[in-house]
């Protein structure tokens, strides 16, 4: 009976952990299968343990090329969307101006639009303009759909910022530029960083919009998509696992440093 009661009392915890398991399971499978030596072209069934793929992660034609292309696009899209988005966020929070409602809708709509709709309509524009599909059209598209997310992230932070802090800086002999660099930017930094991270993740992992507007250029998600039709090399799992491990390590290390700094400052 007591087992049942414990179960009932911790129902939320158990349900939550089950969900967490559901979310983590595919990553575990990806990791395990990065050590597989598949028999056919597809890496879906376990055969035997092997380190081959880990020893030669770029051993498949075009894989690492597409990866580096995706990284380059993600970096530039992040820079572009973060700069433009931060400017918009500041204007929205700190100033009064006409057409505020229209501008808010214009920023909200891309987030309320299925990707495939944006992808298709952007392609019609490029086709009509006779644009050469490739790196630039993908970059333009990525900045476009990342922008709204950056605005949202930065806006939240700037809104919670006391406007008196900027007034205090101006009162203490800081001109507009110095006020921005010394006070506004450092305080808004977490929001801007969050927006930038989100933009990077969205851009790096985007498939649908990229697939429509890339022409014959192949990004990493497009490479994976293609290999799902032709045969999945184990190297995909290696790349996926490596990215996962690197990212988690970076995040945990960052947390650890932040914690230590906090406890040091407390002394």
């Amino acid at each position: 009976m007591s087992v049942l009661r414990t179960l009932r009392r911790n129902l939320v915890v158990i349900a939550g952990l089950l969900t967490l398991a559901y979310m983590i399971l595919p990553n575990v499978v990806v990791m395990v299968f990065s050590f597989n030596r598949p028999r056919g072209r597809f890496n879906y069934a376990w055969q035997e343990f092997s380190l081959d793929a880990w020893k030669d992660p770029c051993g498949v034609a075009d894989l690492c090329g597409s990866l580096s292309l995706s990284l380059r696009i993600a970096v530039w899209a992040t820079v572009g969307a973060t700069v433009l988005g931060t400017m918009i966020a500041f204007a929205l929070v700190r100033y009064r101006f006409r057409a505020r409602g229209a501008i808010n809708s214009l920023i909200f709509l891309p987030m309320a639009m299925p990707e495939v709709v944006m992808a298709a309509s952007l392609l019609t524009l490029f086709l009509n303009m006779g644009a050469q599909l490739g790196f630039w059209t993908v970059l333009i598209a990525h900045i476009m759909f990342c922008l709204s997310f950056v605005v949202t992230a930065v806006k939240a932070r700037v809104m919670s910022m006391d406007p008196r802090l900027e007034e205090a800086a101006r009162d203490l002999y800081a001109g507009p530029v110095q006020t921005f660099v010394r006070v506004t930017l450092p305080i808004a930094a977490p929001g801007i960083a969050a927006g930038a991270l989100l933009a990077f993740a969205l851009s790096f992992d985007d498939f649908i919009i990229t697939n429509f507007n890339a022409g014959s250029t192949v990004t990493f998600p497009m490479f994976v998509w293609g290999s799902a039709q032709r045969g999945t090399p184990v190297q995909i799992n290696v790349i996926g696992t490596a990215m996962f491990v690197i990212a988690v390590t970076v995040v945990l290390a960052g947390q650890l440093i932040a914690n230590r700094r906090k406890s040091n400052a407390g002394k």
Partner: protein
Amino acid sequence: MSVTEAPPAHPAEEAEVRKPSTRRRLVPYWLLLPGILWLLVFFALPMVYQASTSVQTGSLEKGFEVTWHFRTYWDALADYYPQFIRSLLYAGTATLLCLLLGYPLAYLIAFKAGRWRNLVLVLVIAPFFTSFLIRTLAWKTILADGGAVVDVLNTLHVLDVTSWLGWTENNRVLATPMAVVCGLTYNFLPFMILPLYTSLERIDGRLHEAAGDLYATPATTFRKVTLPLSMPGVVSGTLLTFIPASGDYVNAELLGSTDTKMVGSVIQTQFLRVLDYPTAAALSFILMAVVLLVVTVYIRRSGTEDLV
């Protein structure tokens, strides 16, 4: 007295009125200009192009012309309404599942995780770092015929029930609606959990104590206090799940069969393979209209218009 008092009201009209300097007034517009221009040219303008494409006729060889051929819409709907209905059904089911699965986890992180909170949060976000296509392919392994999941479901006769319901076929999960919904749910769960967590985390823990103090059982406390206060998270979570899910075609293509195609697949095929631009544009326009309609009605109904 060295301090003088104001003479009874200067008429304000006579005094020189200072206007804020033009340069200062223009600052917000300069800040907005590049980003808004970007959105206008690469988001709004394409919509116009797409609207015009949808009423064109012609062929790739001879070129397309605007002929106000609205019949394309009718034909597209007549040909592809099953995919439309399927999309909304799958997306709706996945959204509901995300809510049911995501709420306990968000609640766990917000109130029960204690010093594990950050770790669990990292675990929720971490899957993002592996390309979602790779992770979706992993479901092919997990749900494979003869795999552990299918075996267990078979032994428990669960698949007999789901087959009878039309969710699965021939004692397999892969290439059935169930696999597609499972993939959709999996892919969009974090978009449900994070907003839920944000709104739950804001709830003052003392409210739970107050509810308990005022004779509410834990269940009543949840129903009357926690749930209503987390509504903003529920609303934005369901939107963030439903909208992308309705247009998604990756899960349907990778985990489903020709019988589970969603409207996104059709748009993609028409656009990139068949090159029938008017039909593709019309389909995409209908999808946009349906989603915007659903979203607007939903936001109105839930009374959280300040969300936008």
